[in-house]
C-alpha cells in the first residue's frame, strides 16, 4: 500500500445501491463502510485476510461462481448481490457443516451467549443441522497455565494463527494436517504448556470466535472476548514501520 500513489475511486452497486470505493478495497470493506451486513467468521479487522470460512460469499454479475467478499477487490461498474435466497441457503449450509463437523455444545460452552458462531447461526436463521453430526473424539489441551484449547469448538478460522504471527510476532500457532484431520497446533504440535515461543499474551484467546480458546477456570457462559485492542495495536505496529 503506497500513500504516494493517487487514490482512484471506483463506483459499484451492492444490492442495487450505488457506492463509491477506493480501488484497493475489498467488497467486504466497502459493504461494512456502508452499513451493509455480510456474514463472516474468519475475517477480523486488523488481521490479514485468508478467505477461510467462505461465509462472505457474494454474487457478482458476470463472475462464474460466487466470490468471497473479504478477498475480492472492487472494480468499476461491479454489480454485487449480498442478499439472495441462494446465498442464504449456502451460508446456512456452511454453518451447519461447521456445527456438524465437531462438537459444538453451546449449553455447556464457556462462551455460550458470547460466541460469533452461535450468534451468526441465530442471525442467519439456522434452525437445524441437516447433516449427520460427526462426533469426532477431540482432545482438550489444558497444559497451559492460563489458557485452554478445546479442539471440539475450533472452526479453523486461523484468527489465532494470524494474530500471533502478525501482531504479537511469536508465531506459536499453526495449522497441521488436511481435511477433517486439520488442527491448530502450538509450536511443532507440542502441548501448549510446553511451548517455548508462546509469550502468554492471550491475544489468540481474545480473537477466537468460539470457545475453542478460553481462559482457564472460566465457567460456562462466563467467557466473553475483548477485541478492542486489535485496531490500536495494528495502527501502532504499522506506524512504526
Amino acid at each position, binding site marked *: 500500500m503506497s500513500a504516494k500513489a493517487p487514490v482512484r475511486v471506483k463506483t459499484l452497486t451492492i444490492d442495487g445501491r450505488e457506492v463509491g470505493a477506493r480501488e484497493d478495497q475489498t467488497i467486504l470493506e466497502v459493504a461494512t463502510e456502508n452499513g451493509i451486513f455480510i456474514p463472516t467468521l474468519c475475517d477480523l479487522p486488523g488481521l490479514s485476510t485468508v478467505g477461510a470460512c467462505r461465509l462472505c460469499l457474494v454474487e457478482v454479475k458476470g463472475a462464474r461462481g460466487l466470490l468471497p467478499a473479504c478477498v475480492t477487490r472492487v472494480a468499476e461498474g461491479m454489480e454485487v448481490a449480498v442478499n439472495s435466497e441462494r446465498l442464504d441457503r449456502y451460508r446456512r449450509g456452511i454453518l451447519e457443516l461447521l456445527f456438524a463437523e465437531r462438537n459444538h455444545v453451546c*449449553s*455447556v460452552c*464457556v462462551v*455460550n451467549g458470547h460466541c460469533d458462531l452461535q450468534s451468526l447461526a441465530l442471525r442467519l436463521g439456522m434452525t437445524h443441522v441437516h447433516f449427520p453430526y460427526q462426533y469426532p473424539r477431540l*482432545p*482438550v*489441551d*489444558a*497444559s497451559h497455565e492460563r489458557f*485452554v484449547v*478445546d479442539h471440539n469448538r475450533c472452526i479453523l478460522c486461523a484468527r489465532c494463527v494470524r494474530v500471533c504471527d502478525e501482531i504479537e510476532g511469536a508465531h506459536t500457532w499453526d495449522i497441521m494436517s488436511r481435511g477433517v484431520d486439520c488442527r491448530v497446533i502450538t509450536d511443532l504440535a507440542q502441548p501448549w*504448556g510446553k511451548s517455548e515461543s508462546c509469550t502468554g499474551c492471550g491475544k489468540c484467546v481474545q480473537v477466537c470466535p468460539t470457545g475453542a480458546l478460553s481462559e*482457564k*477456570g*472460566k*465457567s*460456562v*457462559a*462466563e467467557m466473553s472476548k475483548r477485541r478492542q485492542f486489535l485496531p490500536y495495536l495494528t495502527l501502532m505496529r504499522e506506524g512504526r514501520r
Partner: protein
Amino acid sequence: MPRQKIVIDPVTRIEGHSKISLHLDEKGRVEEAYFHVTQFRGFEKFCEGRPFYEMPSLMARICGICPVSHLVASAKACDAILAVRIPENAARLRRILNLAQLVQSHALSFFYLSSPDLLLGMDSDPAKRNIFGVAEKFPAIAKDGVRLRQFGQQIIEWLAGKRIHPAWVVPGGVTEPLSAANRDRILEAIPEALGIAQRTLDWFKSEMERFREEIRTFANAPTLFMGLVGPNGNLEHYDGKLRFLDAGGHIVQDGVDGADYANYIAEMAHPWTYLKTSFYKPLGYPEGVYRVGPLARLNIVDGCDTPRASQEWAEFRELDRGAVLSSFHYHYARLVEIAFGLEKIEQLLNAPDILDTNVRAIANANNSEGVGVAEAPRGTLIHHYKVDRDGLITWANLIIATGHNHAAMNRGVLQVARHFVRGNKLTEGMLNRVEAVIRTFDPCLSCSTHADGRLALEVQLRSHDGELLDTQRN
C-alpha cells in the same frame, strides 16, 4: 423363582420411562416384581476429558427438574479439587438456592404428581386423575400448588439469573452476589408461601386416615435410612455429615465425611434395569438396603432448627416408635420440608452478611480428586471426580437419590402387587397403586415425568413359565 429373562426394550430412551414386570407362580400369585428403568444416559463417561470447571453446568444437564441439586453437588466436588474453603456468603447463597429448589421440587411432586391420587382417589377415573382434574374439583389446592412451585422457581431466577440450568454456581462459589432488591423481594413473598405450606400440612394430616391400607402396604418395610445431618444433628441439605439409621431408630453410623462415602456405600448393577442399586456396605445386600429423601431425612435427624418445622417434625416422629417406615409418609415428610425450606430461606436472608460481595474463591486444580455431597429433594446426591494434572476429568462417579432408593422401590412394588393383585387379571386401580408407590419416592428417572404428570408406565403380568398374561399401560 422366576427363570425367564425379560428383555429390556431400548426404545424408551425418552426421559422418565420405566416398566414394571410381575412374575406369577402356578397359582397366579405374585412371586416376584421388577421395576425397570429403561434408559441409559452415560454422563459418567462422556465427561471424561473435559475441564473440571465445566462440570457443574455439564452435570446439571442430567435433569431439568433438579438442575440445582446437581449444580450444588458438582460445585462442591470441584471446590474439593480446587482445595479451597469457599467464602461464607457463597455457601449461604448456594444454600438458599438449594432450598428454593427443594421447595419447588417438593411442590411439583406433591401437588402436580401425587395430589390427584390423594384428592380424587386411587380408583377414580384415570382420564381426570391429574392436575387438571384437581384444578376442576379443588381449585384452591391446585392454585396453592402452582403458587408454591412458582415461588421456588422465582427464588432460583432472582438468585441465579434463570430458572432452569443457571450457570451461577461455579467451582469456588457463585458468580454474582445477591442484590438488596432481590433479597427484599424474596422476603416479602415468604409469608404467603409459608401460609400455603401450613394449610397443606393441616389438610394432609386430617386426610391421612383415609389411606390406612396404602400406608400399611406402600413400601412399608424395615430398611436403613441415610442422609446428611447438620453439626447438631439438625435437618440439613447443603453440607454436613452422613448418618445411617436402622429401622428401629438407632444410629448405625454417624459423622461420615462425604469424601469417605465409598467405604459405606456400594453399588451393584442388575441385568434387568439401567438403574444401579446402592446398599450399606458393612451389612451387604440385601440387609444393607436403605432409603433416602424426605422420609429418611426426617427419620435420621435429631431436630430442625426452625420453629414451625420443628413442631411439625416432632408430630411426624410420633407416627412410629422407631423410624417412620411407610413410604406413603414421604408425602408428609415432603410437606414438613417445604415449611422448613421456607423458614430457613428467611433465616438465611436475614443474615447480616447476606449481601457481601465476596462470593468466589479462585484457584487452580490443586487436588486430583473431589467428592461433593448434598441433599437433593429426592435424597442424597453424590458427585465424585478425578482429574489429571491439567484439571481434565479422568473419572467420574455419580450416585443419585433414585439409585439409593432403588431396592426399596422394588420391594414396595412387590408389596403393593402382592397385596392388591388377585388372580390373573389386572385392574386399573391396582395399576395406579403400583404407580403411586413409586410416586411416593418422587423418583428422578433422569429425571422427569411426562407433560400429563404421570410416569410412562407399563405393567406386565407373567405366569410362572414366563407367558405374558396381560399388559396395561397408561
